[in-house]
Structures are given as structure tokens and as C-alpha cells.
């Protein structure tokens, strides 16, 4: 009996120690992390609200993370910066408000840490979401036509609708697609942080 207790304690000790080392200590390091105030008094990173926050929930729900990362590796380690995926590496403070975190582990598609800075166009993003090969020939990203309504009758085309390049009609984004665009547009880490000079 005594031996079982010793073994059990030893077993638990190993995992408790690793949790402390890998999670609790870094968490303690971040305890006083706050937004950075720049010279103009703006606070970075920005806490997402409204359409952008709703769009982030869509991003999570649709599982974008399985093909897209949101992290820029430092110069000299990979070619993230040379590919134009960011002006600087990303640092812990950039993710202050991210819940759940969406750092990602796979780049079947490009990194999106600065997707909005790189490509601000609403038409581009919405066409790309509707059917990625319209903007990116050869892409294997799944089309998200279910986030749109297709309009083929030219009368009564709402202003928000976007004309398809093959002239087969217009696509009318649902509010979910608009939110998703708002979130993608918000992905911009071009602000400066003292710990991550550009």
C-alpha cells in the first residue's frame, strides 16, 4: 500500500512540475503585461469589439486555424518577414486579448497575422471567401459559398453585393461574411511595440 502511494505521488509530481514550468511560470511572467501606449496616446494591441469580434468567432467556428497561422517568425528564422507576412516578428503582447488563441500550426495557406494590412480590399476578401480560385488560381482553400447569397437577376441588386468577375451574377454577403471580413481586415500588427522593433 505504501509503495502504491509513493509511486502515485512520483507520477503526479512529474506532471505537476511540467505544468508549473511550461504554463504557470510563463503565465506569471505575463502577469503585468498591458497594452502599449504610443506617442499619439493610442493603445496597442486593440481589443476587438463588434463586427470584428463576431468575425473572430466565425474564424474559430469555421476552423480557419487548420490551414492558417497567425504568427510571424523572427527575421533569419524562416522567410516570414521576407514573404511580406509582417514587418516584425510577433511577440506575446500582440496576443494579449486572444481567446481562444489562434496561433496555428499549419500553413497550407499563408500566415494571416497581418492579413488586413496586406490586403485591405473588401471585394478581394469577399470574392476570395466565396470561391478562392477567383482571386487565387490553384488555391485549395474550400469555397465558402454558404456565407453568401447569389443574385442572378440584375434588377434590385443591393449596393453591398459584389459583381462576380465572370459576369455570372452578384454575390450578396451574409452578415457572417461581413463580420469575417471585418475581422480579417483588423488583422494588422504594423503598430510598434518597444520589445519588437521593426
Amino acid at each position: 500500500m505504501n509503495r502504491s502511494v509513493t509511486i502515485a505521488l512520483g507520477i503526479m509530481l512529474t506532471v505537476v512540475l511540467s505544468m508549473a514550468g511550461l504554463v504557470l511560470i510563463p503565465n506569471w511572467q505575463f502577469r503585468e503585461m498591458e497594452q502599449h501606449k504610443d506617442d499619439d496616446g493610442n493603445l496597442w494591441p486593440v481589443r476587438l469589439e463588434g463586427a470584428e469580434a463576431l468575425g473572430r468567432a466565425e474564424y474559430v467556428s469555421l476552423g480557419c486555424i487548420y490551414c492558417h497561422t497567425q504568427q510571424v517568425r523572427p527575421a533569419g528564422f524562416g522567410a516570414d518577414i521576407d514573404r511580406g507576412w509582417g514587418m516584425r516578428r510577433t511577440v506575446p503582447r500582440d496576443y494579449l486579448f486572444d481567446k481562444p488563441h489562434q496561433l496555428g500550426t499549419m500553413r497550407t495557406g499563408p500566415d494571416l497575422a497581418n492579413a488586413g494590412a496586406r490586403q485591405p480590399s473588401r471585394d478581394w476578401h469577399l470574392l476570395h471567401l466565396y470561391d478562392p480560385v477567383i482571386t487565387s488560381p490553384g488555391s485549395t482553400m474550400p469555397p465558402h459559398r454558404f456565407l453568401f447569397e447569389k443574385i442572378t437577376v440584375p434588377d434590385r441588386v443591393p449596393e453591398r453585393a459584389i459583381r462576380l468577375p465572370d459576369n455570372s451574377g452578384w454575390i450578396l454577403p451574409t452578415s457572417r461574411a461581413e463580420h469575417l471580413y471585418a475581422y480579417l481586415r483588423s488583422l494588422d500588427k504594423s503598430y510598434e511595440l518597444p520589445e519588437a522593433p521593426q
Partner: protein
Amino acid sequence: MAAPLPEPAVNDRVSRIQIDRSCRQTVVWYMASAVFWLLAGSVLALVASVKMHAPGFLADAEWLTFGRVRPAHLSTMIYGWGSMAGVGVLLWLQARLSRVRLPLRLLLPVTVVIWNLAVLYGTVRILQGASTGIEWLEFPVEVLAFIGFCMGVIIVASVLMFVRRQVKHTYVSQWYLFGAVLWFPFLYVLGVILSETDAARGVAKAAANWWFAHNVLGLWFTPIGLATAYYMIPKVIGRPVHSYHLSLLGFWTLAIFYNWAGTHHLIGGPLPAWLVTVGIVGSMMMFIPVITVAVNHHLTMVGHFHHLRTSPTLRFVVFAAMSYTAVSFQGSLTSLRAVNEVSHFTHYTIAHAHLGVYAFFSMMMFGAAYYILPRLMNVEWHSARWIRVHFWTTALGIALYWVGLTWAGWQQGRLMNDPNIPFLAIVEYTKPWLHSRSVAGVLMAAGHVSFAWLVWNLIRQRGAALIGPTLLKRRKGA
């Protein structure tokens, strides 16, 4: 050549039969459920795999979009197939090794029902879009309560067996099983709390995520898999394990080092450098337990490899044990920054994960099932041919899977690190290998169907009464 073991005493056999009878309901239910989830997970896998090279496939059904099918595949395989098979094997091994009957025989079958409903609910919620968005923890948080309850019952059963054990000596498998049963619930509860609530801030959530996810393999599947190998290899070849001391060294070094390896998933990421370095050191230290286990298993097997021709259990188990060595070496090397700079974020990692969860753990569970289930059902496997089909489709399938995606991933990483190559050219480069993955997936799925057919017939008691084991080939002179 080891001396033949003496015939076990008659009361020994009787006690084994009694133990097996006590396990029958719980273990068969767990393993049959696991096979169901294996089939479900295979369907999801094939859908996801085809989508990767034919994005238009089933594209207009939102619940079948790639970003939902893929986590549904992972979750059914990890929590349905892997964990349920693991629990079945774990309970049976513990009862056999402690030489006690399975306790809690009313409550344990209830946990099978709850566990199945939890996996079903979680999978449906992912497909509906209610995933938590945290890799390996996609099931909505309420699933934790149900699987947590089941694990609680399983811990109690394990502790009861360990405390009541009728054998003074604790065999190495018992150490691993006792470890697994204590580690996993702790990991699961803390993993959810730390990565899904505000208990941890910002990227500390990511650290918690990978501490958890890597340890599901390291501290749950690996110990169950190794316990199985340590039990099955000596059992089938009729020879004790080579070295007791090596096996203890292997256990404690695994317990101490595997824990720390998880942050190698975050190399180059936005985390303190020391944290990633710790993950790399932990990964390198894993060479010790891995080499220890490999040497111990190899020296046990030496001179007995001819049994691979006849014993289905041994064939799967040895394939799995060799894959464990391979995947661990690959994992340690992949954690090196120079390798990781290329391999990170590519199909290489996906191939590596399947080498671990499939070629090692799943093959080990197949091997265990071939040994355990006939003893519980008192019926033999009805067809050696279907077992051969199962072995060769899955073995060739995972080999093709691994080779194709490892190569594709490595090239993908090299091309990605050259900023002059357009991204879409890289996508184009990987396409043929994504097709080869689908072919591999079909092979493995065909193997799973053969396995399910065998299990179905066994449970329906369609097979010869249990006298001797089903062999892949007749032994000479038998």
C-alpha cells in the same frame, strides 16, 4: 534460446478465466465502441483528405467544410477510437497483471455509454461550428464533465486493482498503466482550465494548449502503448522481458522528460525563448527512454522474430514498437531549431503525428485486440485472411501516408523559406502528395473495415470455440 516456460498451474488458468469473465462486458464494450469511432473517424478523414486536393468536394454543406471535418476527425480518433481502445486494454491488462477481478462491474459499463454519448455530442457540436477552436481540445467544455466522470471511475477501478493486487512484484506495464490513468485526467482538466478560461493570459494559453496536446500522446497513449508491448511481446513468444532495470529506467525517464517536450510546437512563435528551449531540451532527453525501451524490446525479441509469420498480435505489436522508436527519434530531431525552421507549419508535422498516433499507438491497439478479444468472447477470429488484409492494408497505408507527406512537407517548408517562390506555386507542388495521402487513407480505411468485420463476427460468436489462437500461417509440424 530461452528454456521453455513451465506449464502454468491449473488454478492459474482458472483464475485467468475468472478475470477475463469479469472484464468481458466492460472491455468488449469499450473496444467495440472504439472500433465504431475508428470507422467514423476514417470517414471524416477521407472527406478531409479529398477536400485538400479537391476543395469543391461537398463544399456547399457548411457542417462538412474542411475546417470542421478535420477537427471532427481528430477528436473522434483521439477521444473515440484511441482513448476508448486504450481504456479497454488498460483495464484488462491491470486486472490480468494484478490477478484480481475487475471491480466496479456495474459502474464501468455505464461509463462506456456516457463516454460514447460525450464523443457523439462533441463531434456533432464541432460539425455545427461550436468548436472551442483550441487544437486537440475542440470538444465544447461540457464534454469534459462527462469524460471526466468516466475517468474518475476508471481511476478508482485502477487504484482498487493496484491496491488489491495478488502479485507482490509490480511488472513494468503496471507502472505505465498507473501513470497513464493518473496523468490523463489531470492533463485534461488542467488543459481545459488553462487554455480555455482566463486562468492563463494571452500566449500562456498556447503554452497550456501544447503542454496538453503533446502530453495526450506522451502521457496517455504512449504509456498504454508501451504497457501493451511489454505485456504482449513476452506473452506471445513465451520469454521474460530482457531487463527489469532497463524497463524501470525507461519508465521514469519518460515520466520526467516527456512532459517538457510540448513547447517544441511553438518554436519561432511569440513566446519567451527560454520556454521553447526547455521544450527542445525535453525532446532531446527523450532519446534516453526511447533507446532504453527499444533495446529492451529488441533483446527480448532476438531469436524469436519468426513468430511474426504466425502471430497476428505479435506482428501488429512489433510493427507498433518499431514505429515508436522511429517516431520518437523523428520527434526529437524535429525539435532542433534547424530542422524545425523547415518542417514547422507543413505536412511533415501531420505525417509525424500519424506515425505516432497511428503506426505506433493504433497498430498497438490492433495487436492488443487480436489477443484480448478472443479470450473475452471465448471464440476465435473467424478468418486469418481478413487479419492479413487488415495488417497489410494498414501497414502499407501508413507507410505510403508517411513517406508522401514527409517528403511533401519537407519540400513545402524549403520552398516556403525561399521568399522568391510564389505561395501558390508551393500549393501546386504539394498537390500530387495530397492525392497519395488520399490513396493511403483508402488503404487504411479498408483495413479498418476488415478489422470491424472481424470484431463484429467475433462478438456475434461466429468463429471456432477458443482452443488455440488463430495463426496467420500454420506452424511447421502443427
